[in-house]
């Protein structure tokens, strides 16, 4: 009887150890699945605003309009540079233009 009780206790102990080892191993595998949750927490809150409306982003200007603005900017900057070379002063070097890219 004593021998039977000893074997039973030892078996229960072995099962408990196996269960503990299995639980530890499963916890280790589950960690990567927890990462997306952490990433979601780090994202800045948007407060219902659409991504396009975020501050700091320029509105989507048609390419033709953008090219025309760049062309105007280059002409004005070139004229400003020519004016500086005619009369080189610190003020004329950094004079403001009416470029649509700067205003």
């Amino acid at each position, binding site marked *: 009887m004593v021998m039977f009780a000893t074997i039973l206790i030892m078996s229960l102990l072995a099962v408990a150890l196996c269960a503990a080892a299995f639980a530890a191993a499963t916890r280790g595998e589950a960690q990567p699945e927890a990462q997306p949750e952490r990433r979601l927490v780090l994202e800045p809150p948007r407060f219902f605003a659409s991504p396009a409306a975020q501050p700091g982003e320029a509105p989507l200007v048609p390419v033709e309009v953008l090219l025309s603005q760049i062309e105007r900017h*280059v002409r004005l900057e*070139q004229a400003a540079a020519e004016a500086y070379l005619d009369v080189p002063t610190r003020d004329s070097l950094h004079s403001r233009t009416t470029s649509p890219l700067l205003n």
Partner: protein
Amino acid sequence: MTDVQSDLLKGLSEEETARFLALGVPTRLAGRQTLFRLGTEADRAYLMVRGRIALTLPIRIRGAEEEVLVDEMQPGETVGWSGLVPPHRFTLNATAAIDSELLGFSRASVLDYFAAHPAVGYTVTRNLAGVIGHRLQVFQTMWLREMQRVVEQRYA
């Protein structure tokens, strides 16, 4: 074509100007026609006679490549001086903005002529240095103005 008033020919007599211009090969371009492309070998320089040539550089906008105007050449101005200056590669794209006419001077013919007429070679080369130097100064100033704005935006 001998009535061309050019920044390249300042200081030459009428006779010297006429002889030098006689080296040029008339080149006619319709609007939007390409004169030369960035990166290609430059074996000749051009003198604008009539029209307008747009000098452009590629820029990436939203993943697509677009041509941006960086300068526009008028009659009398020199286009494509890379044809006379090493490493003889065009560094811009040149396209006729409207119907245009130019005189094309091959490097070989110009250098031969300069060897035979050193005084003309000296004057034209000095004028060319002035053209290149002015372009350098303009773009240096434009670059500095852009740098100033970058500094103001980044570190204001």
